[in-house]
């Protein structure tokens, strides 16, 4: 089912675990959504993991789940993740799923729903993080299963991780986002990673996300504030005239952003687990981003080698030519 009668772009229903009501974040979230209908639930998985959910339809009418995470909160990242040279690379699951609806997002492949879970027991997260820090310095990706910056209109998780980084120098926090609403803080152990894509990719495949101009403004504002900024050109997505598309994009980036002041740049083409791709195709059955005839390598679907090399070299050569080769990470 689909159609024009879906609830508009807001949370029509907020499902809240009974045990979550005592946490201050619940009231914080509810105060932003007074029109939402609150449904008390026993456990978030009863809603999040319902069988047979129509993720494509849900993505047009997302709902919110507020829950207490009693399990593990901080995880060691997979070896295929970008660790940017940091040895101990972790991610934290303070929320699951994203407010945006990018066709190619691995979250659509990983989760059985488009609804968003926000865990509200912030103190437990801080305790687990501080305990881990006693073992040594830690690089923590805070926006791994979500876009926390985009969710900062809903909850204060981004601020929590920023403040933790500001008070714990052994902790490096990375906040990755496609969002433009960015109020950044200056600290060497706080990295704002902006994912930038050509406008054509944004309009075709990154539904609900800000335009490239707005993201560039956000990057420049962060640089002006002295924040440590990473630019992520990842994933590069195939379109028929990708050479023109990404060349114009590189022009615009070099013209609009002072790359001298950027910490580093990462480039990577789209790749995804074969299992996740099946779900992505169900969720976005008409998107060329997921219907591409991928090559299968070790359980992952990737672009053919020659295409991958060509796509990466468009941006890599331009950034190297502009003198920023030493800042490049290629995945």
């Amino acid at each position, binding site marked *: *089912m*689909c159609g024009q009668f879906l609830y508009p772009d807001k949370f029509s229903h907020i*499902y809240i675990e009974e045990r979550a009501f005592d946490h201050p974040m619940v009231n914080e979230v509810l105060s932003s959504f007074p029109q939402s*209908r609150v449904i008390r639930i026993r456990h978030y998985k*009863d809603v999040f993991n319902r069988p047979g959910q129509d993720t494509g*339809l*849900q993505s047009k009418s997302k709902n919110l789940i507020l829950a207490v995470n009693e399990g593990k909160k901080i995880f060691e990242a997979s070896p295929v993740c970008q660790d940017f040279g940091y040895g101990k690379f972790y991610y934290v699951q303070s929320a699951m799923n994203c407010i945006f609806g990018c066709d190619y997002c691995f979250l659509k492949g990983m989760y059985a729903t488009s609804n968003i879970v926000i865990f509200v027991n912030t103190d437990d997260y801080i305790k687990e993080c501080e305990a881990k820090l006693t073992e040594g310095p830690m690089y923590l990706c805070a926006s791994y299963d979500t876009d926390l910056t985009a969710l900062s209109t809903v909850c204060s998780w981004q601020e929590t991780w920023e403040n933790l980084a500001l008070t714990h120098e052994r902790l490096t926090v990375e906040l990755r986002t496609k969002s433009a609403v960015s109020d950044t803080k200056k600290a060497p152990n706080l990295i704002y990673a902006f994912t930038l894509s050509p406008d054509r990719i944004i309009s075709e495949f990154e539904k609900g996300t800000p335009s490239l101009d707005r993201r560039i403004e956000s990057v420049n504002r962060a640089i002006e504030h002295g924040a440590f900024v990473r630019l992520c050109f990842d994933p590069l997505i195939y379109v028929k005239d990708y050479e023109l598309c990404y060349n114009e994009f590189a022009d615009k980036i070099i013209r609009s952003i002072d790359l001298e002041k950027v910490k580093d740049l990462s480039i990577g083409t789209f790749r995804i687990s074969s299992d996740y791709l099946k779900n992505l195709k169900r969720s976005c059955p*008409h998107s060329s981003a997921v219907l591409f*005839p991928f090559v299968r390598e070790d359980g992952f679907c990737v672009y053919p080698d020659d295409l991958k090399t060509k796509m990466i070299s468009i941006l890599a050569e331009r950034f190297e030519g502009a003198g920023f080769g030493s800042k490049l990470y290629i995945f």
Partner: protein
Amino acid sequence: MIHIFTAIECEASPLRHLVNDDISLTVTGVGKVNAAFAVGRTFGPDKTRNDLLNDVVINVGICGSGNLEGMYLVNKITDNASQRDFYPDILRVFDIDEAPLITADDTVTDPADGVLYDMEGSGLFEAANKLISPDRIIILKIVSDKGDTERLTPAIISSLISKYVPDIERVISEVRSGLIAKPDESYDDLYELLHASASMTVQIDELMAFASSLGVDGRALFMEQIEASEDAKINKAKGKEIINRVRSILIS
């Protein structure tokens, strides 16, 4: 197809006029086992989720409540015996008040406020959700009593349901507007022309879907390559070559 289920005949009779080739009406019998069995029987033993992507289940029936009145769209179902919860996925705007439902094994004589009580909802939902996504299971309950069910006659029940028929019709109309006819596209002709093995048919399907997403006529592209083939007879090896050529053209 829209499948309406009611527990008893007097709930169904005001809805009989809705039945047509696209709408069925089934009287399940009272209780959650009967409701679940009726859903299973309606869909049959061989159906899969993919077969039923355009099917919708609507449960219409009376219920008890301490203080609620009128018709409600159920947003949570608790099975009183198992204490399991089920959540219909409410993604569409029906403009009907929502309420939670408790499904009990017997009539609840002292119903609480703010909640509905029936005897079928959990069984029907759980059975339907085996094959139907939770946004296509719609539970509509009409409050008939505060536990004092002995005064309810078939005529009273039918009259109560009749009162809400316009709202039920509106829900059906809204649901129907969202159903999309599944294109029945077959590439059997291409499989045959290219002497496709099982893995080649998967590749053809993938390329056709990708071509369509790019706005390219995939079939025309395949036919061009088949016609351009120098060999009068295409064998499996030639078929693979053509598939690779089409792939190269699409991702060039």
